[in-house]
């Protein structure tokens, strides 16, 4: 499903958090969003999810303006931070809750969780631990798994590699790409990890002070070189 950002802007006081004239994300793309702290990545995602009000402009998912209805929520999965988690539930209960309210049967849910068993590494399901008592990495996993459980046409993950151990980072990269290939879903991820972003993204947007300053084709050495040059990783 296409996503279109038109004249989208958001400021907090004097600070411009997002200012995008026109930007289109085509159906089936994996868009990696990179930028320094405060560049506006999370704000952009929140605007796309209708969690904050834009000063101007709109976000279209397909032809649906996200601020004008809720039907887009049926096909959008997202995880931004732990305010998405109901932390007094166990992971099993949370997954069951998400599945039930999204019309997913318990058989579908179990089959889905089975696919993620390597990623969850036996630390989430079958436990009597509440989400609030999990480590930051495991909380992150719960959020990602729940977002993907909907089998969304649009998946938005804010810094999904944060807090994860190297093998989980590798696993989630593989799962994201596999999901994209199988479902054709449009996927947006933000990350400070340039290598991971380049590895999985078909397109990379570089954000600075709320503006998209580079639109780079992903998946090749040129993308990495451009990003390294911008972030001055090499003197």
């Amino acid at each position: 499903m296409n996503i279109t950002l038109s004249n989208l802007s958001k400021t907090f006081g004097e600070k411009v958090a997002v200012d995008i004239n026109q930007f289109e994300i085509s159906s089936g793309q994996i868009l990696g969003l990179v930028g320094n702290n405060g560049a506006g990545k999370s704000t952009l995602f929140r605007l796309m999810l209708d969690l904050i009000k834009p000063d101007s402009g709109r976000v279209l998912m397909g032809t649906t303006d996200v601020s004008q209805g809720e039907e887009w929520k049926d096909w959008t999965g997202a995880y931004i931070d732990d305010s998405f988690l109901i932390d007094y539930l166990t992971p099993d209960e949370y997954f069951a809750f998400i599945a039930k309210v999204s019309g997913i049967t318990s058989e579908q849910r179990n089959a889905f969780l089975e696919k993620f068993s390597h990623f969850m590494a036996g630390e989430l399901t079958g436990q009597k631990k509440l989400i609030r008592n999990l480590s930051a990495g495991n909380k992150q996993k719960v959020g990602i798994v729940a977002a993907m459980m909907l089998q969304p046409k649009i998946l938005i993950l804010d810094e999904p590699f944060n807090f994860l151990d190297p093998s989980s980072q590798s696993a989630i990269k593989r799962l994201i790409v596999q999901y994209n290939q199988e479902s054709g879903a449009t996927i947006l991820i933000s990350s400070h990890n340039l290598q991971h972003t380049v590895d999985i993204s078909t397109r990379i947007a570089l954000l600075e002070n709320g503006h998209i300053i580079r639109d780079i084709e992903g998946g090749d050495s040129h993308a990495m070189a451009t990003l390294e040059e911008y972030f001055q990783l090499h003197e």
Partner: protein
Amino acid sequence: MPMKKYALYKLLKQNNNLRNLRHPMFERNKFMKFLGWFMFLYYAALLIFLGVALGLGMGEHGIAAFHYLDGGLPIIIIIDFWVRFILQETPAQTVRPYRLLPISRSFLMNVYLVSSGFSLGNLFWWFMLVPFGIISVMPLLGWGGLAGWLLGWWMLCVANGFAYLFIRSLCMKHLAWAALPALVHGIWVALMVLPKHNLLDMPCTELMYGFALWNPLPYLLGMLLVAASYWANYKLQLQITYEDVAQKEEVEMKTARDFSFFNRFGTLGEYLKMEMKLRLRNKQVRTQFFVGLGLMLFFTGMMYFTDVYDNTFMKSFICLYEYIILGLMTLVGIMCFEGNYIDGLMSRRESIYDLLCAKYYFNSIILLVPFLTVLPLTIIGKISIWMNLGYLFFTIGVIYPCIFQLAVYNKESIPLNQKLIGKQGNMMQQIVAIAALVLPLGIERISVLLVGPVWGYAPLVLLGIVGLYTHKLWLRNIYNRFMKRRYLLMDGFRNSRKS
């Protein structure tokens, strides 16, 4: 060079003041600031009035005048103790930010216990005691006698403050500890009320008279009380901060009850399960819920075991209270707990509507508790069945719809597990709470006056049934208005979340 201890003491005190003043839920809430000052001035004026009135009223009794007041010492101590539950924090809560800094934990604890001892709050009763003492103690025992008498009262308030801190901290581990002061205070009241003569009158008056005469024995006793309660607190609070650091919280639950009974209700059942788990798994929510439930049963008990409230108005009043107390306590802050995970809820279609429905059903079903507990009283004729039905339906069909409107206006997240003292509430909540208390009594009084005690409750039942029958309509309306204000609400929930 390490800071001198006094400078450090001052800095910590200053930080604590800033912590309260800059609390996001307080800083943004001008109405609560105003209300706080208003209530302070109101109660101060009330106590001054009481002090003057009692002093003048008892003036003709000579030296016995202040003995009368001293005889009531246990009552003042009991009130002082329980009021602190609303207003006072525990040191373990306030030292938390410093626990990893190179400041000795025992020093921190001493700072906060000493600050607590010297808190101006312990002098609040002086608004009554000073005018009373000037009128009735000073003429007989001079300024020295007055000073000693006031000092005695202050020492007892300080010891009481420490006793509160001790119990309050234990209550944070388990609410059942509240039974301990309730039992002790119950015994005091029994000793005062049940025998022919008040058994505590003489010891209390002797103690306070001793203070006024600067007799060393009462002072020794007072200091002993303060020292013992200080020491007990010091040990307990220190243990609590260590537990906090070591995260002794039970990480793995023994049983993760799933309330699968609700599965049959589909999506709504999931939200009902969430309501159950919200109440049982979060300390702050659980305490609020069980205290509300306890008060509900307390009011029932009052109707069963005393005949003090047997006039019609009081019966009405208590019966109404029984029905609305839990709703008032738990629903006035509707959506504030959910503010902690509002982004997750808002990313699912109509989840807020489902949640509101679940809340309504849950809170309506729980009203079977007062209905059934009052039922025997209706059988023996102490309470009319119409009154019981009237308040049941009125609460479900009129009071709840009014309180649920707050879902459109509440925008401060309340921590699920951390107790917030004196920083909750807004103007809208206060208005709704007062209306919930006054409105039904007003309707009932007028109606009973006009058409008698049986048909008088018909309007309450009727209005209640209408509200119940149309609940999906008004819940949908609340949901639509919530969605219209969603940005404002989400912004408020987010800003007040990390406190």
